[in-house]
């Protein structure tokens, strides 16, 4: 069976080649990831700080216990959740409206879409500054415009609830265009015949939207919501610039708290612990992403 042997030889050489080409990149990733990762897990079982010269002490799950008993952790967790639970629906609804407005091509629509997308790639630190100036209670344009319609000036960044609203405002400004873009791609992938069939059946515009367009957009909505959850878990720079987590701990997100524990308190053990907790959450989201988005590629537009 010379033929099969040849096939097997080719397969073997292909496997070798595949591993060989994957090697350099894998080595880099593993060196940069696995080392720190193992070190992090290890540290999460130790009471260890850089702030005092006390030698580290092995403490089993004590760090985890203190983390889950710490109301500051739950506050940060809740703040991240609030940004997701309030921000993502607002951004999705707003993005849907804008996407529907932009869906039908018109002269210059490409340029308009491009202009809409500018906030997405703005340096996050600059985004923080932009809103810091805009929200300034005395000289900011927002309070000025509100003043024109009779609203008294608000101390946006000084009051806890308003500071959270400011973070949401900034997040919505930066990421609604991204959601719009994904929804536009989803809308473009819906075949014309579907709309024609709906119109032949005599369905009204709003019926078509709810019964035809929305169900067909479900896969892209799933994708964009998962991505937004991931991005919100990651967000650090603009929050750090705009509020620094304050006033008090009012806008402290998980990322900001992780930074504070690590580099303000220099608590190595605790920072490792909160990192492990976030890693576990993200692992679950990555699994979900693979199941809902990648294994259903046919459902997403291409």
């Amino acid at each position, binding site marked *: 069976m010379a033929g099969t042997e040849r096939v097997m030889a080719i397969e073997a050489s292909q496997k070798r080649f595949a591993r060989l*080409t994957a090697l350099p*990149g894998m080595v*880099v990733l593993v060196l940069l990831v696995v080392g720190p990762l193992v070190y*992090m897990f290890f540290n999460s079982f130790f009471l260890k700080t850089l702030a005092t010269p006390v030698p580290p002490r092995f403490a089993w799950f004590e760090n985890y216990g203190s983390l889950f008993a710490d109301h500051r952790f739950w506050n940060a967790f809740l703040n991240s959740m609030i940004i997701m639970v309030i921000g993502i629906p607002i951004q999705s609804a707003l993005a849907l409206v804008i996407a529907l407005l932009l869906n039908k091509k018109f002269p210059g629509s490409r340029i308009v879409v491009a202009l*809409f997308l500018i906030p997405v790639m703005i340096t996050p630190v600059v985004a923080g500054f932009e809103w810091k100036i805009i929200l300034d209670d005395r*000289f900011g344009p927002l309070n000025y415009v509100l003043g024109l319609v009779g609203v008294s000036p608000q101390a946006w960044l000084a009051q806890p609830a308003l500071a959270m609203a400011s973070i949401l405002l900034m997040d919505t400004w930066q990421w609604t265009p991204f959601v719009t873009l994904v929804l536009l791609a989803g809308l473009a992938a819906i075949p014309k015949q579907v709309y024609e069939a709906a119109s032949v059946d005599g369905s009204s515009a709003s019926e078509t939207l709810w019964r035809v367009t929305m169900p067909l957009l479900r896969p892209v909505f799933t*994708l964009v919501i998962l991505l937004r959850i991931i991005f919100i878990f990651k967000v650090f720079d603009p929050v750090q610039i705009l509020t620094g987590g304050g006033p008090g701990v009012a806008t402290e997100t998980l990322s900001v708290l992780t*930074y504070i524990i690590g*580099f303000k308190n220099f608590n190595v053990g605790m920072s490792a612990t909160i990192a492990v907790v976030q890693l576990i959450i993200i692992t679950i989201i990555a699994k979900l992403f*693979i199941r809902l988005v990648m294994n259903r590629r046919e459902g997403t537009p291409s």
Partner: protein
Amino acid sequence: MTTTELRREDLARRQRIRTLLGVLRFALILIFLLIFLFPVYWIGIGAFKVEGEFYHYPPVFWPSQFNFANFGRAMTVFGGTQALTTSLVVAVVNTGLVIAFGVLLAYSMGRFKVGGENMSFFVLSLLFAPPVIATMPLFIIFKTLRMLDTYPVLFLSYILINMPFAVWVMKGFFEEIPQSIESAALLDGYSRLHAFWKYILPLAVPGIAVTALFVFIFSWNEFLFALIFTRSHAQTLPITLAGMTGGHQIPWGEISALSLIAITPGILLTLFFQKYLVRGLTFGAVKG
């Protein structure tokens, strides 16, 4: 009135409604556009204001005179030149490293499914993980190696941020190249590496270039790692910007000027590579 007259009137009414809706649509688009671009406009115009105009009520929406001195002071007094150089060097070198190490891995994953779903899961988890969780272990490691506040610390640590992204997106581009091209090259007696180098890579160049642009912008915009791993020698643009608020009076004019410079590459990418934006930002899940 005859039925034809009624019909005509009905048609005319519908036409009017359609025109009205069209006008409404453009009005709404314009309003949204103004709202979303206003913050960018505000920081942009701020670069040309004199200091007093930042502390003026009502706010100055259009400065009476364009003032360019902010750029000069931002570059010299506030260390903008050094920051700009550092950011440029770090972003270019990091992009080079990420692409160099990432291309083959992406090809291997896209074509031969190396590591299967576990590998995908590994790369995706890295892509999704908040960078802040890696800061403490890396800080201790880099401190031990005496690498803090040097260029190499950013070259290396940004690989962690960008390589999972680059590998994942380039993998998608490689998957789109038909397998028959390799088969033909192999039948012609080329080695696999040669086939990759001579036939596949040239076809992948546009995808690789777009990925590189994204990596460049991500490095350029990065703040957290630079904040923790550098102090003064390797200060990048975002760090210099953030540091400018340290004094007792915030130099908004200079901050705006430097901000305008900082956001220019990202804006250019958005305007000229819009087609690839959705693909990059959804990590290849939407091809756009």
